[in-house]
C-alpha cells in the first residue's frame, strides 16, 4: 500500500523523524486555518499518489491568507494525470540551502536491506543513478545487524553531505531505518531531505510503501486503508476476498493460482485478444468463490467473453464445475463463458458440465484452444 505524502509524514513523525509543521485540509477554509496555525509563508500541496504534481500546478507557495485561498481553491478538484485532488497538505515553507536524497528498500538479489544516500537530492534518483552514479552512496545492511549511528556517520561522510548536516542526517537516517524496519515499509524514501540556511536537517517529502503482509501487526494502518482510492471493480473483489486487478481489455479472466492467471493473460494476448482483468481465485474454488468471481467480472461493462482457466491440483475440478453451475444459477452472466478444465478430477468435472453446455457455456481441451475461443467471441 502506497501512502499519501501527508500520511508518510505522519508515519515518519511517529518515529521521531523531523518534518515541517503542517496539517491536512479538505477545504479552502481548513487550508486557511492550518496556514494561520503554522505561520506564513506556507506551501499548499496536492495529495495524489502520482508523480509530477508540481509541474501540473499542484504545489504552490502562499505568503498570505489571500494566496492560500486562491491556491487551495485552484488545487482542490484539480485533475493530475487522472487523479482528482480531494485533499491538501499545508505546511510551513522551508528555506532550502541543500537538497539530499535518502531511502531504504529491500535489495532482492542480495537478500539484504539497501540504503541509498545522495548529496544530489530533489530530482528523481533514477536520473541521478543514470547520469552520475558516483553521487549515490549505497549501503548494504544485514537485517540481523541493523544500522547503528557509527555506521550512519561514516555513510553521510561517504555521501559527501555538507559537514554541518552530517550529525543530524546520521541521526535521522537511523530513525528512518527504524521506521523502515519496525514500520514494515517496502520503501521509505525522503526526497528531498533538506538542510536549511539555519543548519537544520529535515524531511521535506515522504514516500512510503507499506508491506500489506504485515498489516496484522499494525492496527494503525486502518486509517490509511480507508483513504485508498480504488477501482470500483477492485473494491468489490477485495470485499469478496478475491485477488483482482482491473485491466483495459475485453476478455474476463478467472484462473486458479497467480502464475496461471498471469500466464492466461499472456496467452490471450498472444492469440490476438486483451484481458479485462487479472483474477486469481486461489486454491479453494468452491461455488461461493466462483460465484463471487463471475459477479465481479460481470460488473465490468467492457467484458465480452469470460475465460475460466483451471488446473486442478489441490483444487478439484469437479468442485469447480459445480461451482460454475451454482454461480450461473445465482448470477445472471452477460457474457459467454469458455472453460478449460484440467488436472485433479478433470474427467468428472467435464462430465458434470456436459449436459449444460450451450453457446454461452463452452469447454475447450487446452489452454490455447480456450484462449482462441474466448478471444474469438470477444472480438466477434
Amino acid at each position, binding site marked *: 500500500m502506497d501512502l499519501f505524502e501527508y500520511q508518510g509524514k505522519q508515519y515518519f513523525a511517529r518515529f521521531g523523524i523531523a518534518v515541517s509543521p503542517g496539517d491536512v485540509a479538505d477545504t479552502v477554509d481548513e487550508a486557511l486555518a492550518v496556514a494561520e496555525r503554522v505561520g506564513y509563508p506556507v506551501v499548499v500541496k496536492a495529495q495524489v499518489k502520482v508523480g509530477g504534481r508540481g509541474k501540473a500546478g499542484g504545489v504552490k507557495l502562499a505568503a498570505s491568507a489571500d494566496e492560500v485561498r486562491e491556491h487551495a481553491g485552484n488545487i482542490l478538484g484539480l485533475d493530475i494525470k487522472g487523479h482528482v485532488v480531494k485533499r491538501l497538505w499545508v505546511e510551513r515553507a522551508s528555506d532550502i540551502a541543500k537538497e539530499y536524497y535518502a531511502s531504504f528498500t529491500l535489495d532482492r*538479489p542480495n537478500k539484504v536491506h539497501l540504503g541509498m544516500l545522495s548529496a544530489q537530492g530533489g530530482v528523481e534518483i533514477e536520473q541521478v543513478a543514470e547520469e552520475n552514479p558516483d553521487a549515490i552512496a549505497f549501503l548494504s545492511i544485514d537485517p540481523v545487524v541493523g544500522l547503528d549511528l557509527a555506521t550512519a556517520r561514516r555513510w553521510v561522510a561517504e555521501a559527501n553531505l555538507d559537514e554541518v548536516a552530517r550529525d543530524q542526517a546520521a541521526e535521522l537516517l537511523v530513525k528512518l531505518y527504524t521506521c523502515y524496519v519496525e514500520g*514494515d515499509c517496502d520503501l521509505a524514501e525522503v526526497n528531498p531531505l533538506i538542510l536549511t540556511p539555519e543548519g537544520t536537517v529535515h524531511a521535506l517529502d515522504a514516500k512510503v510503501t507499506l508491506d500489506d*503482509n504485515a498489516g496484522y501487526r499494525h492496527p494503525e494502518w486502518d486509517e490509511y486503508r480507508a483513504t485508498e482510492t480504488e477501482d470500483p471493480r477492485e473494491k468489490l473483489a477485495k470485499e469478496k476476498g478475491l485477488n483482482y486487478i482491473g485491466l483495459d481489455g475485453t476478455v474476463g479472466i478467472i484462473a486458479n493460482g497467480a*502464475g496461471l492467471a498471469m500466464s492466461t493473460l499472456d496467452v490471450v494476448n498472444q492469440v490476438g485478444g486483451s484481458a479485462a482483468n487479472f483474477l486469481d481465485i486461489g486454491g479453494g474454488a468452491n461455488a461461493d468463490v466462483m460465484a463471487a468471481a463471475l459477479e465481479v467480472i460481470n460488473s465490468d461493462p467492457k467484458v465480452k467473453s469470460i475465460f475460466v482457466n483451471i488446473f*486442478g491440483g489441490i483444487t478439484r475440478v469437479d468442485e469447480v464445475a459445480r461451482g460454475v453451475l451454482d454461480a450461473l444459477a445465482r448470477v445472471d452472466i452477460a457474457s459467454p463463458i469458455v472453460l478449460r478444465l484440467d488436472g485433479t478430477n478433470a474427467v468428472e468435472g467435464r462430465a458434470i458440465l456436459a449436459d449444460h453446455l450451450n453457446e454461452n457455456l463452452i469447454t475447450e481441451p487446452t*489452454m490455447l484452444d480456450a484462449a482462441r475461443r474466448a478471444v474469438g467471441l470477444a472480438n466477434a
Partner: protein
Amino acid sequence: MSIFVDENTKVIVQGLTGGQGRFHGLRNRDYGTQIVGGVTPGKGGTDVDGVPVFNSVKEAVDATGATASFVVVPPKFAAAAIMEAAEGGITFIVCITEGIPAHDEALTYNRLVEEFPGVRLLGPNCPGIISPGKCNIGITSGDIALPGGPVGIVSRSGTLTYQALHELSQQGIGQTTCVGIGGDPVPGTNFIDCLEAFQADPDTKAVMMIGEIGGSEEERAAEWIKANMTKPVVAYIAGVTAPAGRKMGHAGAIISGSKGTAQAKMEALAAAGVHVCQNPTEAGEKMVDIVRAL
C-alpha cells in the same frame, strides 16, 4: 537420483494438527513420503492419524531422526517456526506459508545463512518439492508427477508447476525432482541453487525453468547457465502482459519501473542458450522434443 529429497528423507510437519497441516501432511504420507512426526506446542503425546505429535522440533528430531521439516503454520508464526526447525537440527525446511511480512523473511533468511549455514530453506510461499515416486513435501498433487526422470523442474509459480508436470507426464516423460521455489521477495532457495543441483545430478538430463515477472533471479540464473550449465534448459516466463507497478498475486511478482519485465528475462535467458517458450504448452512440447532426441 533426485535432488534435495528422496525415499530416505524423514519428514516432520510443523503444524500437523491444523487443518492445512493435517490435510497436506497426510496426503504426503499417503504418497509414500516418510512423515515421521508432527510438531505442535502443547499437543505432544497425541497423534494425527497415527503420526506422533511432539511439543518441539528438538523432541521430534531426537525421537525420529528427521532431517526435513514441512512448515505449514500461519504467517505470524512462520518465521519462528523456521528458526525452531533449524535450531532443532533440521537441515531441509519447506515453508508453504503465504503472506509472511518481507522484513521477517529477510531477517530469517540472513539468520539461517549466518547461524545455520548447512540448512536449506525452500520457500516461503511455495508449493514444495516432489521427487516423484520417492518423496513429496508440500501441496503438489502427487498423481500428476511421473517417476523416473529425466527432467528436473524448477518454478517460481504453483499452478504453473502443476501445468508443467502435467504437460510432461501426459507425454510419458518423467521427472527427477520438481522444486517450487515460491513467489516471495526473499526465497530461501533460488533458481541457481536448483540448477546447480540438477547439473550435478546424473539422472537429470534436461531442466525446465518457470519464472515470472519481478526481481532479477531469472537474469542471474541466465548468467549462471551461460557459465556452468551443460544440460539443455527450457524456460517459460509468465507476465509478458502484466502492467508495471502492480503485484500480480505474488508479493514478488511486480515490475518496478523498467526492472523485472518478462521481456528482459526472456532475452537474458535466450542469450544464455536457453530454449525460451511463449506459453506453458509450447514449453512442454519443446521439452518433449529435447528428451526424445536424447
